[in-house]
């Protein structure tokens, strides 16, 4: 019961953060929102008994991609027109 409630809450958080990362015009905020989505998705993968995928998602989605995106924003413009 509690497990499924947590699961539903986490799924809603993933959906909301994914939509937010589309909605934000400030690209840095969009990237941070994407990072939160990856982090919550990691917990969901772990709850679904897929620790391999969870580790890969945490390392690549929440750390490496964000680092590369932040560097790219720094090299270009911060706001989307």
């Amino acid at each position: 019961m509690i497990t499924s409630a947590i699961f539903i809450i986490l799924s809603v958080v993933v959906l909301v953060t994914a939509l937010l990362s589309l909605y934000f015009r400030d690209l840095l905020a969009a990237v941070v929102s994407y990072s939160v989505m990856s982090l919550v998705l990691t917990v969901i993968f772990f709850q679904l008994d897929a620790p391999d995928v969870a580790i890969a998602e945490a390392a690549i989605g929440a750390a490496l991609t964000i680092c590369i995106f932040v560097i790219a924003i720094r090299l270009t413009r911060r706001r989307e027109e």
Partner: protein
Amino acid sequence: MKVGSIGSFLSLFLIVGFLFVGISRLHPVGEPLGNRDVFKDRNSLVTDTSNVDTMDDYFLRNGQRETGSNNIVASVVFDYRAFDTLGEATVLFLVVSSISMLLYTALKQKKMVLELKDPETGFPKNMTRIVSNGAYLMYPMILAFGVYLVAHGHISPGGGFQGGAVMASGTALLLVSSYITNHIKNTYKIFSFYESLGLTIFIGLGFAGIGVSFLFNFLADFSPLFLGRIINLGPNPGFLNSAGILPILSLAIGIEVFFGLSIILVSLFHLSRKEENTLQKY
């Protein structure tokens, strides 16, 4: 315009439908096998197809016997479909090569202005002591976790790709806390050498078992000295020296992924460092 949006909606529903069909055929979570009798007889493979309706049934029943690896995912990735993994590694190698080629020409054209360390303290200039010290303390732990994931890839969840990505995220931590190199050329040399070394080990091991087939697991059940320890069937903690060439392949992939992703991060970060003066601050 309208036709395009209708088509995209249709393809979306089609993909979601296929996904739901796939999900409905999955095993229930936590119930991998109907009966555990298949683990009693060591020598005979379960080829009885009456209960084996999907491919994962076959892997779950025979994976430990055939590859000596406790982690079924690793046995699939590095043994049953090792050739696909070689393809993935080659794709990553090509991506890293092309990106670093492009970035290296951009890096070489500009003068390196990398006097970022404070000469008195030895720490990066534009970072607080807390950030640089924290990164300095965290980096060995992240590396150790990545090495653990790579080395235990055939026993516990993890493996070469995940471990290499975790280690590369340690490199990202060092870079964002301004631990940078003044010797970008030597960094390129060392990193590209080790990246090539990983892929070469993978292909070389593949050719070592060419007597049977490419990437044949010739070390499994060979000798405990050469990673060939025979493991118990069923759920068990496992041994480090089992599974034949799986740990070596995992190590090769780990080396390749770590140095490949690190070289992308290092070159991108140094490019952004140097352009900082010319661009407007946000």
